[in-house]
């Protein structure tokens, strides 16, 4: 089992390297923006990976409420935490791109605002997990995760529903939108690489969650034994 994980680590590192090569070397330079457009090859795959992780969190939360299994709860926590990491990358790389292109770091348009709200929802979820005490914490956080996921389609559709400063969508954006086929390779390779990295991080975080639960249970057991003496 350990060797399989190490092979997966190796594949992920190779994919990340290949994705970087595609983004910086293979993809053509965009005519209007120049090299700064290459931020797109990290910004968009990070956003898609975050959406995917929040979807996993949503499904795991439903399963937890249905079956009350510790495994699905651990998957929910792990995917939410890693999702927040990727969403943070989106919120940081976006303004770095915006400053030279728009002349401003941030504007309160629909896409940017809903993305910030999404990040805040999942940070709230993690804060709830970290600091709330009591037997209902898992149930409350699963409910928050299910309602919180409603923002994901809103973020995705924001640039289709509203007039925004954010660039038009690359998928399903109608006539005149979309990407050059050579640019697609860089986007998809980086998405694959980020998805593999996300899977690795979720696996480590899941294992950590289960170990922490074991330690907590052992401490409670020791306290009970100490109290009964």
């Amino acid at each position, binding site marked *: 089992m350990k060797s399989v994980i190490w092979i997966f680590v190796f594949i992920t590192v190779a994919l990340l390297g290949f994705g970087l090569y595609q983004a910086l070397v293979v993809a053509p330079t965009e005519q209007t923006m120049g090299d700064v457009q290459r931020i797109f090859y990290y910004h968009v795959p990070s956003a898609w990976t975050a959406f995917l992780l929040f979807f996993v969190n949503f499904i795991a939360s439903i399963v937890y409420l249905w079956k009350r299994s510790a495994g699905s709860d651990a998957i929910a926590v792990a995917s939410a935490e890693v999702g927040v990491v990727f969403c943070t990358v989106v919120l*940081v790389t976006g303004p770095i791109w915006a400053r030279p292109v728009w002349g401003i770091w941030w504007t309160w348009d629909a896409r940017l605002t809903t993305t910030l709200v999404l990040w805040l929802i999942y940070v709230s979820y993690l804060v709830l997990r970290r600091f709330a005490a009591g037997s209902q914490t898992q149930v409350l956080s699963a409910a928050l995760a299910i309602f919180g996921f409603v923002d994901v389609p809103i973020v995705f559709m924001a640039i289709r529903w509203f007039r925004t400063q954010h660039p038009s969508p690359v998928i399903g954006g109608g006539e005149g939108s979309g990407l050059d086929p050579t640019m697609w390779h860089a986007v998809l390779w980086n998405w694959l690489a980020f998805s593999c990295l996300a899977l690795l*991080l979720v696996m*480590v975080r899941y294992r*950590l969650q289960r170990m922490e639960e074991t*330690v907590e249970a052992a401490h409670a057991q*020791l306290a009970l034994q100490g109290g009964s003496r």
Partner: protein
Amino acid sequence: MSGAVALKAAYIVTWVIQLGYLGYLLGRYRKVREEMKDLKRSS
């Protein structure tokens, strides 16, 4: 900020966030493993 500086900054920040999180996870993992060993010794 020029385009080239922005590009470098965005890629470096992405890696710092991702590797920083990985480092944070591994640190916590090590701590829990030590705690598990201590518990085994004390029980």
